[in-house]
């Protein structure tokens, strides 16, 4: 067995099953006891009251719940909190706040990368991770040469951000914001 999670009785039950889990959220260690059914998104929103991450579809289709877990962006709605024992989790609150905006947050403000703002925390977490993915040399569907190092282009950004839906249609401004952050970094 790994970690503190023990197998519960195999007997058929409709009662909630509680399991303890410990992970780090935005640099802070958190100890929780959760119903096994709790998604990572519900754990952070409902139990830790970090409500920046949003629940859109709750089925991995919209990207509003995107968080960065152990350096990778994932849909927090499609993963169980108890499967993240020991994980390092970053939500939009961990990237920056009103007095210390992350460069991506500042660029979204500057380029008007949102209207209603509901998808924005997920867009920003995804955007930060996308630039890291390109930097790490991970190819995409639009990378012409699989063996070449992928470049930061508008086409690459659009393809890689396709898991984040914005029904207000702020896409072109999101691309501008990400392009500026990528350029500033280069």
């Amino acid at each position, binding site marked *: *067995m*790994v*970690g503190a*999670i*023990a*197998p*519960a*009785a*195999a007997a*058929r*039950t*409709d*009662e*909630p*099953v509680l*399991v303890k889990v410990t992970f780090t959220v935005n640099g802070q260690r958190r100890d929780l006891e959760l*119903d*096994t*059914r709790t*998604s990572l998104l519900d754990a952070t929103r409902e139990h830790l009251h970090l409500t920046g991450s949003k629940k859109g579809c*709750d*089925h*991995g289709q919209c*990207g509003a719940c*995107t968080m960065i877990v152990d350096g*990778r*962006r*994932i*849909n927090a709605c*499609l*993963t*169980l909190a*108890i*499967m993240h024992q020991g994980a390092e989790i970053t939500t939009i609150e961990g990237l920056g706040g009103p007095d210390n905006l992350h460069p991506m947050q500042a660029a979204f403000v500057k380029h008007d990368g949102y209207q209603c703002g509901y998808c924005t925390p997920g867009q920003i977490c*995804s955007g930060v*991770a*996308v630039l890291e*993915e390109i930097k*790490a*040399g*991970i*190819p*995409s*569907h639009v*990378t012409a040469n*699989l*063996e070449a190092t992928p470049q930061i282009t508008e086409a690459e950004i*659009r*393809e*890689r951000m*396709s*898991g*984040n839906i914005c029904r207000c249609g702020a896409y072109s401004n999101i691309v501008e914001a990400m392009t500026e952050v990528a350029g500033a970094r280069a």
Partner: protein
Amino acid sequence: MKSFTYERPSTPAEAAAAVGRTPEAKFIAGGTNLLDLMKLQIETPRHLVDVNGLGLDTVEPTDDGGLRIGALVRNTDLAAHPRVRKDYGVLARALLAGASGQLRNKATTAGNLLQRTRCPYFYDTAQACNKRQPGSGCSALDGVSRQLAVIGGSDACIATHPGDMAVAMRVLDATVETVDGVGAARTIPIAEFHRLPGDDPARDTNLQPGELITAVTLPKPVAGTHIYRKVRDRASYAYALVSVAAILSKDGSGHVAFGGVAHKPWRVEAAEADLPKGAKAVTQQVFADAKPTHENAYKLTLAERTLGAALNQARV
């Protein structure tokens, strides 16, 4: 979601034994498909065996020049692996054509093979579906079938395998490695891994209850242009209407498998000899037994044209 118990074993044999001995137990890896289905109560396991502690997450060369891919290698890592990009481009392309960046970061090699159909009637628990509820009927036969199978279906089911990765693995002649609850290992050629629905559409694959995928092995690389062309309703993040996984020489000779058309990746090896004659000569044979519905007959034309585009791509 229905309540369930949970455990996280540390060896493949323990994991297989745990699912074997526990009623209504399931493995969970990336969870991106299973949790979606659990929220809709299409899947209602009583016990989850988390396999993320098993290792099985490396890509290693094999003695005969091929590649052994651990069951838990994430789709992102497999697509980005230097050997896959260099020698198995069709696989990298197929992976990158699937899902979104967030999902590929979680989704695993084994889980991708085991993802379930996206037939709208499988997903709608108010509708008849023999795959979800055996014996209830198939609402798709007279329903909205635009995205569904054109070949290999039955009177009980016309669902498709939704994945891209498996189509590439079919053209690469991959082999699936498994272990069962008593520790016995076996290998299953990818051609025999997924089933046709027949009169038992609830079973997607030929895995036995409790049998755990440990790896997928690729034979040594096949020379030629590696192509994965996926036709879908939008440019990104959508399931294939038709896809073509092909490894082709300039004269057109090579190998081809089709996705989005059947309950499994669809390949007819005997038709491949005619690839140099053009797409139509091949698709006429590959789809000779097709039984499309009034809504999805377009897939036969689309398959021919998509293969034609792949042949043109290989000529350049």
